């Protein structure tokens, strides 16, 4: 039995030796003890049939446990009326599960209406949320099928947030959208989470998504066993066993670098008079690399900000013709360049430190 105990903060959701056996005899969740801190994102990850979705669904009683206790905000979920409990917990599912016969606005207003807010107040709140999730106001009058997959998913998030629940359950919410939109939605979720500090339980089978979004990650193995629960850095640095290591994949060292920003990476002035020159505009924003040779070749430059990851820097140092990465401030103005050697050296050190610290 693995017990996951986050160090700080209040616990919002607690699983205490929870067991779930379905009537057909399969064990979906095996003696699970797991704690989820208030205001944090806990990602449940594992291949299909590992019990991660069942674990999620037991929190709002879409599935009841066979034995054990689940507490949300300190209260045993089984002691509460199921419908009331569900109204107090936001829920986002794959392909959004929107009501096709209701307008976007009325979809978002679902829980407020169930709570008896009245149509006017519920719609006003829904309109406010359209903006929060980055949708235009006129989207409110449309029906779900008139929106793109990504927009529908945003409506799904807005609907879950409508009654401002402290807890949000997200069951592979971005599983059905293309990778570009998926990354956008992940960014949006991180931005929203910074603002709202919900306790989020997020199910996915995508380890990259887990590393990106999770404050802690719980890895499940077939048969409903929790194998390891840790912060992304700890997990990547110290996988508990071969199963976890396999699941994290061969590039787990690189994934670890994706968690570290390049803010402290040393930088120097841009080279002048070499084979390649970094061309800037009047505002000192990098435009492209220009070759000094007679051909006058221009190559694109992808400048990095301090908030970008070391992984991005490593990638850029390999892609850049000069082995140099252009560094810019938040406004996009050049602050200096970092060399391939510096990046490699720094990344190596960061990796070792992360392994020791975690």
């Amino acid at each position, binding site marked *: 039995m693995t017990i996951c105990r986050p160090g700080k903060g209040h616990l919002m959701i607690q699983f205490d030796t929870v067991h779930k056996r379905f009537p057909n005899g399969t064990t979906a969740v095996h003696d699970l003890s797991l704690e989820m801190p208030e205001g944090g994102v806990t990602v449940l990850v594992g291949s299909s049939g590992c019990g991660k979705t069942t674990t999620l669904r037991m929190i709002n009683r879409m599935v009841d446990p066979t034995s054990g206790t689940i507490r949300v905000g300190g209260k045993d979920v089984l002691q509460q009326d199921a*419908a009331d409990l569900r*109204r107090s917990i936001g829920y986002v*599912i794959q*392909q959004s599960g929107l009501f096709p016969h209701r307008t976007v606005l009325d979809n978002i207003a679902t829980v407020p209406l*169930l709570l008896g807010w009245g149509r006017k107040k519920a719609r006003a709140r829904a309109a406010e949320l359209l903006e929060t999730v980055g949708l235009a106001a006129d989207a409110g009058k449309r*029906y779900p*099928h008139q929106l793109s997959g990504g927009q529908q998913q945003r409506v799904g998030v807005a609907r879950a947030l409508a009654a401002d629940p402290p807890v949000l359950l997200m069951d592979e919410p971005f599983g059905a959208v293309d990778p570009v939109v998926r990354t956008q939605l992940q960014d949006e979720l991180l931005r929203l989470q910074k603002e709202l500090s919900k306790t989020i339980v997020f199910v996915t089978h995508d380890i990259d998504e887990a590393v990106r979004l999770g404050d802690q990650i719980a890895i499940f193995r077939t048969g409903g066993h929790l194998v390891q629960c840790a912060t992304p850095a700890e997990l990547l640095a110290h996988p508990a066993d071969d199963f976890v290591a396999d699941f994290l994949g061969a590039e787990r060292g690189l994934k670890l670098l994706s968690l570290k920003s390049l803010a402290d990476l040393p930088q120097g002035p841009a080279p002048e008079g070499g084979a390649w020159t970094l061309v800037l505009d009047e505002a000192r924003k990098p435009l492209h690399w220009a070759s000094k040779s007679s051909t006058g070749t221009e190559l694109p430059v992808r400048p990095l900000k301090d908030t970008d990851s070391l992984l991005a820097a490593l990638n850029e140092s390999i892609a850049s013709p000069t082995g140099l990465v252009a560094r810019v401030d938040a406004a996009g103005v050049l602050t200096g360049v970092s060399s391939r050697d510096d990046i490699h050296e720094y990344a190596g050190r960061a990796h070792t430190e992360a392994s020791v610290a975690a």
Partner: protein
Amino acid sequence: MTIDWSWIGDHTDDLTTLTFSHLQAALSAVFFGLLISLPLAVVAHRVRPLRGFLLGLSNVLFTIPSIAIFVLLLPVSGLTRTTTVIGLTIYSLVVLLRNTVEGLDSVPAKTKEAAKAMGTRPLRTLLTVELPLALPVIMAGVRIATVMSISLVSVATYIGDGGLGQLFTDGFQRNFPTPVIAGVVLTLLLALVADALLVAIQYVLTPWTRRRA
């Protein structure tokens, strides 16, 4: 076969009365048919073992000859409009029940699941999610049942009712085709108008089905 227009001119009042009587019998049957079908369909949809039984029963009832139904009902409701409506209601069930069950079946599991997960209780889910989403399939059944009932009303001429059907016996007995033709044309018109009205009602009730992206 020629039409005696003067007969029609002399009988406009009768024709109007018969048309409305005809329509009233047909619509009553569909109304009561729906009233019975809705709860039975919900049961058939939720309780799988009962589903085959209920759908089978509605099929069997449909195969009973109309004269037999009326004869069986005579001791209960006599030679009245009630007998006509009960008979037609029984026939309407075969379409209404099946379509309502299929309509409920057509509601995506994901949508029902979402309703439940949002904290919607079962009755509210049925009324505000399942039935509205089943409406297009239910309305398809209502349209068939309405047209079918309109054509079937004439059968009740046997028991002295039958709306426009009375024109058929009248014309037949006197070997005078005009009332028969008038009856056929009016029945057809009734069916067409009723169907068009139902299409319009469905259009108004299901705004989400018509706005395409």
